[in-house]
């Protein structure tokens, strides 16, 4: 008996099948990358540690309060969110060495091989339980933005690069030592009662 030839499979519809699958994946795909503001929470203090609170001079603290009506009180002055960035930058840098703004102390930076006057400012952020999350993030964003802008300027001053991101890891470390991001969040209080 003669062997029967198996007929060739027509490949023409392969494209259709592939298209079908392609459309399925196109529809189900969600390419959302999660973005946000990264923060490090402070660890819970030990019982013994709690008693030895570090005293920080008042001129070194930049107090930002947000109340339940989403209003800002910065260093005992009312302020709009838009003005916060400039005020924060002025505080952190203290270029004019004002009495009311933070002290500076000389610190040896290995990467630059010289001593630099490093300001000792700390930002203290406090919010009410009734504060809305939106304004809280807006304030956090402004504070981080102030630090980023200062670091960018420092990157230009010390290394001649346009932005902090362009520096090598070592150089970034040096800038971080000069302007460490110090944002402290106090335990929340419930005043607005909402």
């Amino acid at each position, binding site marked *: 008996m003669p062997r029967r030839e198996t007929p060739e499979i027509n*490949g023409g519809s*392969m*494209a259709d099948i*592939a*298209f079908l*699958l*392609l459309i399925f*994946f*196109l529809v*189900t*795909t*969600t*390419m*959302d*990358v*999660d*973005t*946000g*503001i*990264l*923060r*490090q*929470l*402070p*660890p*819970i203090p030990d019982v013994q540690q709690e008693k030895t609170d570090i005293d920080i001079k008042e001129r070194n603290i930049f107090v930002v309060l947000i109340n339940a009506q989403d209003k800002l009180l910065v260093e005992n002055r009312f302020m709009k969110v838009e003005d916060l960035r400039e005020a924060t930058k002025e505080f952190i840098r203290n270029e004019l060495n004002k009495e009311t703004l933070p002290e500076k102390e000389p610190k040896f930076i290995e990467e630059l091989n010289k001593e630099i006057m490093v300001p000792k400012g700390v930002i203290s952020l406090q*919010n*009410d*339980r*009734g*504060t*809305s*999350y*939106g304004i*809280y*993030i*807006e304030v*956090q*964003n402004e504070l*981080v*933005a102030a630090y*980023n802008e200062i670091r960018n300027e420092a990157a230009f001053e010390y290394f001649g690069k346009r932005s902090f991101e362009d520096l090598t890891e070592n150089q970034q470390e040096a800038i971080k030592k000069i302007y460490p991001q110090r944002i402290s969040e106090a335990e*929340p209080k*419930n005043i607005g009662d*909402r």
Partner: protein
Amino acid sequence: MAKFNRAKKKGAPGISTASLPDIVFMLLFFFMISTVMREVELKVQVSAGDLPKATEIKKLEKKSLVSYIYVGKPRRQYQSLYGTEPRIQLNASFATVTDIRDYIISEREQRDEAEIPFMTTSLKVHQETRMGIVTDIKQELRKASALKINYSARKMD
């Protein structure tokens, strides 16, 4: 002797579609690889448009090391059961603040021990939520010593 050519057909010749499947397959593989199926069904209202906007945002790297906490009003179909006050969602179910510690512990158990210090908790919170519940979550995370957190936010143009 000169041959007489027959009059040529005018116009461009048809493009061969034989390589079409290859191109489509290439696209298909791209989408298959880049696709991420949503693992959990959201029971609270925190779609991308409800997140707060910010400019200083960073991309979260290593998605496998991120655990999510969703906070927002329950979706309409759950409102009869859970009310309209903002609630916490962990995995696929509603939870209370006290459940967070167990959640973090169970998330840790799923990972390699060496990876635990790099684990991040991403807070997806509706922007109209009051800070009270967020503060409670943060306190609870501190107690569980899950200190790396991310306030999920959209890019502001």
